[in-house]
Protein backbone atom coordinates (compact mmCIF):
# COMPACT_ATOMS: atom_id res chain seq x y z
CA UNK A 1 0.00 0.00 0.00
CA UNK A 2 2.80 2.31 0.94
CA UNK A 3 4.66 1.55 -2.26
CA UNK A 4 1.54 2.22 -4.33
CA UNK A 5 0.97 5.64 -2.79
CA UNK A 6 4.61 6.63 -3.39
CA UNK A 7 4.34 5.70 -7.07
CA UNK A 8 1.14 7.68 -7.55
CA UNK A 9 2.75 10.79 -6.03
CA UNK A 10 5.76 10.40 -8.28
CA UNK A 11 3.51 10.20 -11.36
CA UNK A 12 1.65 13.34 -10.35
CA UNK A 13 4.81 15.45 -9.80
CA UNK A 14 6.52 14.30 -13.01
CA UNK A 15 6.18 17.20 -15.56
CA UNK A 16 4.25 16.09 -18.57
CA UNK A 17 6.07 16.55 -21.92
CA UNK A 18 4.61 19.56 -23.67
CA UNK A 19 4.33 19.97 -27.41
CA UNK A 20 7.18 22.29 -28.53
CA UNK A 21 5.84 23.20 -31.97
CA UNK A 22 5.26 26.78 -30.93
CA UNK A 23 8.89 27.24 -29.98
CA UNK A 24 10.13 25.49 -33.11
CA UNK A 25 7.98 27.68 -35.36
CA UNK A 26 9.07 30.83 -33.50
CA UNK A 27 12.76 29.94 -33.87
CA UNK A 28 12.31 29.06 -37.54
CA UNK A 29 10.53 32.35 -38.16
CA UNK A 30 13.33 34.23 -36.40
CA UNK A 31 15.94 32.35 -38.41
CA UNK A 32 14.14 33.10 -41.67
CA UNK A 33 13.86 36.75 -40.73
CA UNK A 34 17.60 36.92 -39.95
CA UNK A 35 18.44 35.20 -43.26
CA UNK A 36 16.37 37.77 -45.17
CA UNK A 37 18.12 40.63 -43.35
CA UNK A 38 21.53 39.04 -43.99
CA UNK A 39 20.80 38.58 -47.71
CA UNK A 40 19.64 42.19 -47.94
CA UNK A 41 22.79 43.42 -46.20
CA UNK A 42 25.02 41.27 -48.40
CA UNK A 43 23.33 42.60 -51.51
CA UNK A 44 23.68 46.20 -50.35
CA UNK A 45 27.38 45.63 -49.62
CA UNK A 46 28.07 44.28 -53.11
CA UNK A 47 29.95 46.72 -55.28
CA UNK A 48 29.38 47.27 -58.98
CA UNK A 49 29.49 44.35 -61.40
CA UNK A 50 32.98 42.86 -61.30
CA UNK A 51 35.41 43.37 -64.14
CA UNK A 52 35.67 40.13 -66.10
CA UNK A 53 32.04 39.20 -65.34
CA UNK A 54 29.27 38.99 -67.89
CA UNK A 55 27.11 42.10 -67.75
CA UNK A 56 23.48 41.65 -66.76
CA UNK A 57 20.95 41.37 -69.53
CA UNK A 58 18.73 44.41 -70.05
CA UNK A 59 16.64 46.17 -72.64
CA UNK A 60 16.79 49.93 -72.96
CA UNK A 61 13.83 51.79 -74.40
CA UNK A 62 15.23 55.02 -75.77
CA UNK A 63 13.54 58.40 -75.71
CA UNK A 64 12.77 57.71 -79.39
CA UNK A 65 10.99 54.47 -78.33
CA UNK A 66 13.67 52.26 -79.88
CA UNK A 67 14.30 48.97 -78.02
CA UNK A 68 17.94 48.00 -77.58
CA UNK A 69 18.83 44.67 -75.96
CA UNK A 70 22.38 44.25 -74.73
CA UNK A 71 22.50 40.63 -76.00
CA UNK A 72 21.90 41.90 -79.54
CA UNK A 73 25.11 43.94 -79.28
CA UNK A 74 27.44 40.96 -78.87
CA UNK A 75 30.38 41.31 -81.21
CA UNK A 76 30.49 45.06 -80.58
CA UNK A 77 32.19 47.16 -77.96
CA UNK A 78 29.55 48.82 -75.81
CA UNK A 79 30.00 51.87 -73.63
CA UNK A 80 27.18 52.32 -71.12
CA UNK A 81 27.00 55.67 -69.40
CA UNK A 82 24.65 56.31 -66.45
CA UNK A 83 23.78 59.98 -66.11
CA UNK A 84 21.06 62.39 -64.97
CA UNK A 85 20.14 65.95 -65.82
CA UNK A 86 20.41 66.98 -62.15
CA UNK A 87 23.95 65.60 -61.93
CA UNK A 88 26.56 68.35 -62.24
CA UNK A 89 29.58 66.02 -62.65
CA UNK A 90 27.74 64.40 -65.59
CA UNK A 91 27.95 67.72 -67.40
CA UNK A 92 31.75 67.64 -67.15
CA UNK A 93 31.98 64.57 -69.37
CA UNK A 94 28.91 65.04 -71.60
CA UNK A 95 30.71 66.87 -74.38
CA UNK A 96 33.69 64.48 -74.29
CA UNK A 97 31.40 61.45 -74.54
CA UNK A 98 29.65 62.93 -77.57
CA UNK A 99 33.02 63.75 -79.14
CA UNK A 100 34.14 60.17 -78.55
CA UNK A 101 30.93 58.90 -80.11
CA UNK A 102 31.50 61.09 -83.17
CA UNK A 103 35.02 59.67 -83.39
CA UNK A 104 33.96 55.99 -83.26
CA UNK A 105 30.43 55.87 -84.68
CA UNK A 106 31.39 55.32 -88.34
CA UNK A 107 33.35 52.16 -87.48
CA UNK A 108 30.14 50.31 -86.72
CA UNK A 109 31.65 48.10 -84.02
CA UNK A 110 31.41 50.60 -81.16
CA UNK A 111 28.09 51.43 -79.53
CA UNK A 112 27.40 54.10 -76.93
CA UNK A 113 24.30 53.88 -74.72
CA UNK A 114 23.18 56.57 -72.31
CA UNK A 115 20.99 55.50 -69.42
CA UNK A 116 19.13 58.30 -67.70
CA UNK A 117 18.95 57.53 -63.99
CA UNK A 118 16.04 58.75 -61.79
CA UNK A 119 15.31 61.75 -63.94
CA UNK A 120 12.38 63.69 -65.30
CA UNK A 121 11.86 63.49 -69.03
CA UNK A 122 11.61 67.20 -69.95
CA UNK A 123 14.85 67.99 -68.10
CA UNK A 124 16.54 64.91 -69.56
CA UNK A 125 15.62 65.93 -73.10
CA UNK A 126 16.81 69.47 -72.41
CA UNK A 127 20.13 68.06 -71.19
CA UNK A 128 20.57 65.96 -74.35
CA UNK A 129 19.78 69.00 -76.47
CA UNK A 130 22.13 71.26 -74.49
CA UNK A 131 25.10 68.94 -75.02
CA UNK A 132 24.00 67.91 -78.54
CA UNK A 133 24.16 64.23 -77.61
CA UNK A 134 23.29 61.98 -80.54
CA UNK A 135 24.00 58.44 -79.33
CA UNK A 136 20.98 56.42 -78.08
CA UNK A 137 19.69 57.47 -74.68
CA UNK A 138 16.75 56.32 -72.64
CA UNK A 139 15.29 56.37 -69.15
CA UNK A 140 16.10 53.65 -66.65
CA UNK A 141 12.50 52.57 -66.24
CA UNK A 142 11.83 51.24 -62.75
CA UNK A 143 15.58 51.74 -62.03
CA UNK A 144 15.95 48.13 -63.20
CA UNK A 145 19.15 48.62 -65.20
CA UNK A 146 20.92 50.63 -62.51
CA UNK A 147 19.94 48.02 -59.93
CA UNK A 148 21.23 45.21 -62.17
CA UNK A 149 24.56 47.04 -62.47
CA UNK A 150 24.41 47.97 -58.76
CA UNK A 151 25.51 51.52 -59.48
CA UNK A 152 26.28 53.76 -56.52
CA UNK A 153 25.54 57.06 -58.23
CA UNK A 154 26.00 59.01 -61.43
CA UNK A 155 27.98 59.37 -63.56
CA UNK A 156 29.22 55.82 -63.91
CA UNK A 157 30.42 54.29 -67.16
CA UNK A 158 30.81 50.61 -68.05
CA UNK A 159 32.80 49.34 -71.02
CA UNK A 160 31.91 45.93 -72.39
CA UNK A 161 33.97 43.91 -74.87
CA UNK A 162 32.77 41.96 -77.89
CA UNK A 163 31.99 38.88 -75.76
CA UNK A 164 29.73 40.79 -73.41
CA UNK A 165 32.31 40.85 -70.62
CA UNK A 166 32.82 43.92 -68.50
CA UNK A 167 36.31 45.32 -69.11
CA UNK A 168 36.33 48.73 -67.44
CA UNK A 169 34.34 50.76 -64.94
CA UNK A 170 34.63 54.52 -64.56
CA UNK A 171 33.17 55.84 -61.32
CA UNK A 172 32.69 59.58 -61.68
CA UNK A 173 33.19 61.62 -64.84
CA UNK A 174 35.81 61.06 -67.50
CA UNK A 175 38.37 63.84 -67.40
CA UNK A 176 38.95 64.14 -71.14
CA UNK A 177 38.30 62.74 -74.59
CA UNK A 178 41.79 61.23 -74.51
CA UNK A 179 40.90 59.26 -71.38
CA UNK A 180 37.79 57.82 -73.07
CA UNK A 181 39.83 56.85 -76.12
CA UNK A 182 42.49 55.30 -73.92
CA UNK A 183 40.01 52.78 -72.52
CA UNK A 184 38.20 51.99 -75.80
CA UNK A 185 41.20 51.67 -78.15
CA UNK A 186 42.79 48.62 -76.47
CA UNK A 187 39.54 46.70 -77.00
CA UNK A 188 39.38 47.51 -80.72
CA UNK A 189 42.50 45.54 -81.51
CA UNK A 190 41.29 42.35 -79.83
Amino acid sequence: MMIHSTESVTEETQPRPRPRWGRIIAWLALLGFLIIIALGLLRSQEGPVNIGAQVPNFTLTTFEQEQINILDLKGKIVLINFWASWCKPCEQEAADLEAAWQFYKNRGDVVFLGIDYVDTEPEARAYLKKFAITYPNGPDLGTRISQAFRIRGVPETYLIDREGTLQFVQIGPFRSLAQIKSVIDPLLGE
Partner: protein
Amino acid sequence: MSRHSARLLKIPGRFLLLFLLLALVLVSHAAAQTPSPSQPTDDQVNAIAKRLYCPVCENIPLDVCGTQACAQWRDLIRQRLAEGWSDRQIINYFVDQYGDRVLATPPARGLNWLVYIIPPLLILAGAFILWRALRFWKEPLSQPEPNPPDDYTKRVEEELRKR
Protein backbone atom coordinates in the same frame (compact mmCIF):
# COMPACT_ATOMS: atom_id res chain seq x y z
CA MET B 1 -19.67 126.09 -70.26
CA SER B 2 -17.44 128.58 -68.41
CA ARG B 3 -13.71 128.05 -67.85
CA HIS B 4 -14.37 127.59 -64.10
CA SER B 5 -16.88 124.79 -64.54
CA ALA B 6 -14.56 123.04 -67.02
CA ARG B 7 -11.79 123.07 -64.39
CA LEU B 8 -14.20 121.58 -61.85
CA LEU B 9 -14.97 118.74 -64.21
CA LYS B 10 -11.26 118.06 -64.81
CA ILE B 11 -10.43 117.51 -61.13
CA PRO B 12 -12.82 114.55 -60.58
CA GLY B 13 -11.59 113.15 -63.91
CA ARG B 14 -8.04 113.08 -62.57
CA PHE B 15 -9.27 111.47 -59.35
CA LEU B 16 -11.17 108.90 -61.36
CA LEU B 17 -8.07 108.05 -63.39
CA LEU B 18 -5.98 107.76 -60.23
CA PHE B 19 -8.64 105.56 -58.62
CA LEU B 20 -8.77 103.26 -61.65
CA LEU B 21 -4.97 102.90 -61.69
CA LEU B 22 -4.91 102.12 -57.97
CA ALA B 23 -7.71 99.56 -58.39
CA LEU B 24 -5.84 97.95 -61.28
CA VAL B 25 -2.67 97.62 -59.18
CA LEU B 26 -4.59 96.13 -56.24
CA VAL B 27 -6.51 93.65 -58.40
CA SER B 28 -3.38 92.49 -60.22
CA HIS B 29 -1.57 92.11 -56.87
CA ALA B 30 -4.45 90.04 -55.49
CA ALA B 31 -4.53 87.93 -58.64
CA ALA B 32 -0.82 87.26 -58.31
CA GLN B 33 -1.33 86.01 -54.76
CA THR B 34 -4.36 83.82 -55.50
CA PRO B 35 -3.46 80.73 -57.53
CA SER B 36 -5.49 80.23 -60.63
CA PRO B 37 -7.58 77.06 -60.72
CA SER B 38 -5.15 75.45 -63.19
CA GLN B 39 -2.11 76.25 -61.05
CA PRO B 40 -1.77 73.72 -58.19
CA THR B 41 -0.76 75.03 -54.78
CA ASP B 42 2.36 73.94 -52.90
CA ASP B 43 0.11 72.09 -50.44
CA GLN B 44 -1.43 70.04 -53.24
CA VAL B 45 2.01 69.20 -54.61
CA ASN B 46 3.38 68.32 -51.16
CA ALA B 47 0.36 66.14 -50.34
CA ILE B 48 1.50 63.83 -53.14
CA ALA B 49 5.24 64.43 -52.65
CA LYS B 50 5.20 63.25 -49.04
CA ARG B 51 3.98 59.85 -50.22
CA LEU B 52 7.07 59.48 -52.40
CA TYR B 53 10.81 59.04 -51.80
CA CYS B 54 13.40 59.89 -54.41
CA PRO B 55 15.85 56.95 -54.73
CA VAL B 56 18.77 59.38 -54.89
CA CYS B 57 18.16 60.78 -51.42
CA GLU B 58 17.19 57.75 -49.40
CA ASN B 59 15.07 58.17 -46.27
CA ILE B 60 14.09 61.75 -47.10
CA PRO B 61 10.48 62.25 -48.19
CA LEU B 62 10.13 64.10 -51.46
CA ASP B 63 8.22 67.02 -49.93
CA VAL B 64 11.17 68.03 -47.72
CA CYS B 65 14.10 66.90 -49.87
CA GLY B 66 16.26 69.80 -51.01
CA THR B 67 18.19 68.31 -53.93
CA GLN B 68 17.76 69.38 -57.52
CA ALA B 69 16.49 65.91 -58.45
CA CYS B 70 13.67 66.19 -55.90
CA ALA B 71 12.86 69.74 -56.99
CA GLN B 72 12.46 68.41 -60.54
CA TRP B 73 10.15 65.68 -59.29
CA ARG B 74 7.99 68.21 -57.44
CA ASP B 75 7.85 70.35 -60.59
CA LEU B 76 6.70 67.29 -62.50
CA ILE B 77 3.97 66.64 -59.91
CA ARG B 78 2.84 70.27 -60.25
CA GLN B 79 2.83 69.95 -64.02
CA ARG B 80 0.79 66.74 -63.96
CA LEU B 81 -1.70 68.22 -61.48
CA ALA B 82 -2.12 71.23 -63.76
CA GLU B 83 -2.84 68.83 -66.61
CA GLY B 84 -5.66 67.34 -64.54
CA TRP B 85 -4.04 64.08 -63.43
CA SER B 86 -5.38 62.51 -60.24
CA ASP B 87 -3.17 61.73 -57.23
CA ARG B 88 -3.36 58.02 -58.01
CA GLN B 89 -2.37 58.55 -61.66
CA ILE B 90 0.64 60.64 -60.65
CA ILE B 91 1.82 58.10 -58.08
CA ASN B 92 1.36 55.25 -60.59
CA TYR B 93 3.40 57.24 -63.10
CA PHE B 94 6.28 57.57 -60.63
CA VAL B 95 6.09 53.84 -59.79
CA ASP B 96 6.18 52.97 -63.51
CA GLN B 97 9.14 55.25 -64.07
CA TYR B 98 11.23 54.56 -60.98
CA GLY B 99 9.88 51.39 -59.38
CA ASP B 100 8.14 50.51 -56.11
CA ARG B 101 11.06 51.86 -54.11
CA VAL B 102 9.76 55.43 -54.53
CA LEU B 103 6.67 54.66 -52.45
CA ALA B 104 6.62 55.67 -48.79
CA THR B 105 4.29 52.73 -48.11
CA PRO B 106 5.45 49.60 -49.90
CA PRO B 107 2.75 47.72 -51.79
CA ALA B 108 1.57 44.54 -50.03
CA ARG B 109 2.97 41.94 -52.41
CA GLY B 110 5.92 39.55 -52.50
CA LEU B 111 8.42 39.95 -49.68
CA ASN B 112 6.80 43.29 -48.80
CA TRP B 113 4.18 41.27 -46.93
CA LEU B 114 6.78 40.74 -44.21
CA VAL B 115 6.62 44.46 -43.43
CA TYR B 116 2.94 44.10 -42.64
CA ILE B 117 3.05 40.71 -40.93
CA ILE B 118 6.18 40.75 -38.78
CA PRO B 119 5.48 43.83 -36.59
CA PRO B 120 1.99 42.66 -35.48
CA LEU B 121 3.37 39.15 -34.88
CA LEU B 122 6.19 40.55 -32.77
CA ILE B 123 3.73 42.65 -30.78
CA LEU B 124 1.51 39.59 -30.20
CA ALA B 125 4.52 37.47 -29.16
CA GLY B 126 5.68 40.23 -26.81
CA ALA B 127 2.20 40.52 -25.29
CA PHE B 128 2.09 36.75 -24.76
CA ILE B 129 5.53 36.72 -23.08
CA LEU B 130 4.50 39.64 -20.86
CA TRP B 131 1.26 37.89 -19.91
CA ARG B 132 3.17 34.72 -19.01
CA ALA B 133 5.69 36.68 -16.96
CA LEU B 134 3.00 38.60 -15.09
CA ARG B 135 1.15 35.38 -14.32
CA PHE B 136 4.34 33.79 -13.02
CA TRP B 137 5.15 36.78 -10.81
CA LYS B 138 1.62 36.73 -9.40
CA GLU B 139 1.40 32.98 -8.74
CA PRO B 140 4.85 31.43 -8.44
CA LEU B 141 4.97 27.84 -9.58
CA SER B 142 3.88 25.54 -6.72
CA GLN B 143 6.69 23.52 -5.28
CA PRO B 144 6.13 19.76 -5.46
CA GLU B 145 5.14 18.16 -2.19
CA PRO B 146 8.12 16.49 -0.51
CA ASN B 147 8.01 12.73 -0.65
CA PRO B 148 6.80 11.13 2.57
CA PRO B 149 9.75 9.95 4.65
CA ASP B 150 10.72 6.34 4.13
CA ASP B 151 11.42 3.89 6.97
CA TYR B 152 15.08 4.67 7.21
CA THR B 153 14.49 8.43 7.45
CA LYS B 154 11.79 7.83 10.03
CA ARG B 155 14.21 5.82 12.14
CA VAL B 156 16.94 8.46 11.86
CA GLU B 157 14.53 11.18 12.90
CA GLU B 158 13.33 9.07 15.80
CA GLU B 159 16.89 8.53 16.97
CA LEU B 160 17.61 12.22 16.75
CA ARG B 161 14.56 13.05 18.77
CA LYS B 162 15.62 10.61 21.46
CA ARG B 163 18.90 12.48 21.89
